[in-house]
C-alpha cells in the first residue's frame, strides 16, 4: 500500500538547510495499523504530510497504492487526497460555521460522487456514534465529539488509508479512548491506519510501532496485539 524509498526532506530556514527527514525507507501493507512515534519536533508531521500527499519530499520515491506519487502533479495529488486518503488532525480542523453534517460532506463536494450527500453524512456520523449531533455546530460539541466529526469526514469518501496526526493530542483520556476505539474498529474492517503520536499509550494500541529519531527510523517492531 505504501512504499517509501530513501526519502529526504530538507527545509531552508534562515539561510540554513535543516534536514528533517534523513533517508527514510518504509513499507506498509494494506490493512496494517501503524503508529509512528517520536518526541515533538522530530519530523513526524512532516513525514505524515508527505505520506498524505499534502507535501512533497525533497528527494526519494513514494509509491501509494501503485501510484508513483513523486511524479504526480498538484491536481492528481488532490484527487488522491480526495479518493484514497482520509486525514485526521490534532486540532480537528472543522469549519466553525458549518454543522457536523456539512463538515462531514466536504470531501464529497470535490469528488465525482453525485449521490445524496446528506444520507451519506448521516451514515458515517452514525458509525462514529454522532447520529444525534448531525445539525450541531463544532462549538456546540465536546472535543471528543469534534474529533469524531473529523473522523466521519475522513471516512465519507470510503478511503483506503486513514492518516491521523496526534489525533488524541487535544483530548482528555476518555475521549482519547473513544477515538482509539473507533480506529481499532476501522482496522478490523480492513482499513489501513497510520497514526502519529508522541503518547506511548496511544502508540501501543497499533499493531506496528515505528520510532523515529533525528529524521531516521530507529525502531520498527510489531506489538503483541498483532499476533
Amino acid at each position, binding site marked *: 500500500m505504501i512504499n517509501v524509498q530513501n526519502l529526504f526532506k530538507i527545509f531552508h530556514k534562515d539561510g540554513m538547510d535543516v534536514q528533517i527527514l534523513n533517508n527514510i525507507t518504509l513499507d506498509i501493507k494494506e490493512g496494517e495499523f501503524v503508529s509512528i512515534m517520536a518526541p515533538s519536533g522530530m519530523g513526524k508531521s512532516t513525514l505524515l*504530510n508527505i505520506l498524505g500527499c499534502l507535501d512533497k519530499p525533497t528527494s526519494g520515491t513514494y509509491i501509494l497504492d501503485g501510484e508513483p506519487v513523486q511524479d504526480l502533479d498538484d*491536481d492528481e495529488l*488532490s484527487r488522491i487526497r480526495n479518493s484514497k486518503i482520509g486525514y485526521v488532525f490534532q486540532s480537528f480542523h472543522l469549519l466553525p460555521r458549518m454543522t457536523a453534517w*456539512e463538515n462531514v460532506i466536504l470531501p464529497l*463536494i*470535490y469528488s465525482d460522487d453525485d449521490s445524496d450527500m446528506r444520507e451519506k453524512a448521516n451514515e458515517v456520523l452514525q458509525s462514529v456514534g454522532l447520529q444525534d449531533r448531525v445539525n450541531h455546530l463544532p462549538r456546540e460539541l465536546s472535543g471528543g465529539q469534534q474529533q469524531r466529526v473529523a473522523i466521519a469526514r475522513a471516512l465519507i469518501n470510503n478511503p483506503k488509508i486513514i492518516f491521523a496526526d496526534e489525533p488524541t493530542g487535544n483530548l482528555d483520556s476518555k475521549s482519547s479512548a473513544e477515538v482509539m476505539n473507533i480506529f481499532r474498529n476501522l482496522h478490523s474492517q480492513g482499513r489501513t491506519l497510520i497514526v502519529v503520536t508522541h503518547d506511548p499509550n496511544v502508540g501501543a494500541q497499533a499493531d506496528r510501532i515505528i520510532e523515529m529519531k533525528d529524521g531516521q527510523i530507529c525502531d520498527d517492531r510489531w506489538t503483541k496485539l498483532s499476533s
Partner: protein
Amino acid sequence: MKIIRMSAQAFRSMRDNKVRSFLMMLGVIIGVATLTTIVSSVLGARSQVMSRVERFGLDQIMVMAGAGRKPGVPQPTPTTLKIEDANSILSEISNVKDVCPQINRRDIPIKYQNKNSYAILIAANTNWAEIWNTQIPNGRFFNDSEVSRLNRVAVIGQSLVNELFDGEDPVGKQIILANNPFEVIGVLEKKGASPTGLDLDSRIVVPISTGMKRVFNQDYITNIKIVVSDVNQMTDTVNDVKMLLRERHNLAPGVEDDFTIVTPTLIMALASKVSSTFNIFLILISLVSLFVGAVVIANIMFISVNERKAEIGIRRAVGATRNDILTQFLIESVTVSFLGGIIGGLSGIVTVILLSHLMKMHFGALATPLVISIACAILVGLVAGIQPARKASYTDPIEALK
C-alpha cells in the same frame, strides 16, 4: 454536479457573512443604479431622435426658403422659393419621386360660431397627408379638383376640434379662417407635440392654390418636401436640387444659397447633439463607481482570503484542487456583484420611473439597460475576484493548517 455543489458552498459562505457580502455589493449597487438610469435615458433620447427622423421620413428631403435655417425655428420667410421650383425639381431630377410644396404660417385666427382660436395654417398639395404620414380618421383629405378650383376646404387638427366644436362632429361645418369661410372636410390624426414644442394638433391644412390666392395672396412658398426613389443616391440628389435651385434663382457663383436643404442625417445630428455631453459625464460617473466597486470587492476578497486560510487548507486537504478553490472564490465574487447588479438595476429602474413621472423626462426601454448593467456587474465581479481567487488557490495547505 461538482460545480453546483461548489456554488452551494460559495452561497453558504456569503450567507454566513452578510455584512461582508453587503459591503462588497455597495459600489456595484451604486454604479449599476446610475448606469441603468443613464442607459435608459440615453436610449430614450435616441428613440426620440429616431422617431423624429422617421416622422420626417428617411427617404425625404426638405427645401426651406431662406439661408441657414433650422427646422422648427421661425424666421421671416424670403420670397424667392416658388411653386414652379417644386414642379421643376419633380420633372428634372430623376431620383425625385414626389414633391409637396407648402406654405406654413403660425397664429392664424380661426373661428367657429362664437368660438375663437389660433391655428398653424398649412397650404399644401393633395399628397401632403401621405408624405407627412398622417391619417384622416374622420372625413377625408382634399382632392385634385378642389385644388384646381381653389375650393375653400380644410382638414383640421384634434386640438382645434376640441377647442371649437365641443363634442360636435366638425365635418361639414363652416369655419372662418383669416376672414375666409372654409368648410371642414376632415380631421387630422392626433400627433401630439413636435420636438420643438409646437402643438401639431393645432394645424389646419388647406389646398395650396386656395392658400396662395385666397388667404395669403402671395406667389412664394415656405418649403418643398421632396421624396426620393433611391435612398442610396440621397447625397447626389441633394446636390442636384441645390444646383437646380441656384440656377433657377440666378445665383452667381460665390453667392450664398437663398434656401436651406434639410436631410434626415441633418435632423439626426441636430437632435442627438443635445444632452450628449451630459450623458458622457454621467456614464463616466457610473463607470467610476463600478471601478470603485471592483476595487472594494477585490480588497474585501483579499482580506477574506487571508482570514480563511485555514478553511482553504482544510478544503485542499480533503481534495479540492487549486482550480476548485479558484472557482469557488470566483463564484463568490461574481455572485456578490451579480446580486449587487440586480439590486442596483432595480433601484435604477425605480429611479427611472420616478424621474419620468416627476420631471416628465423621456426614458427608453428598461430591459436593455438592465441587461447591460447586470452584465457590467458580472464583469466587475470577475475582474475584481480573479486576483484574490488566484491568491486563495495558491494557499499552501500545510502552512494553512499549522
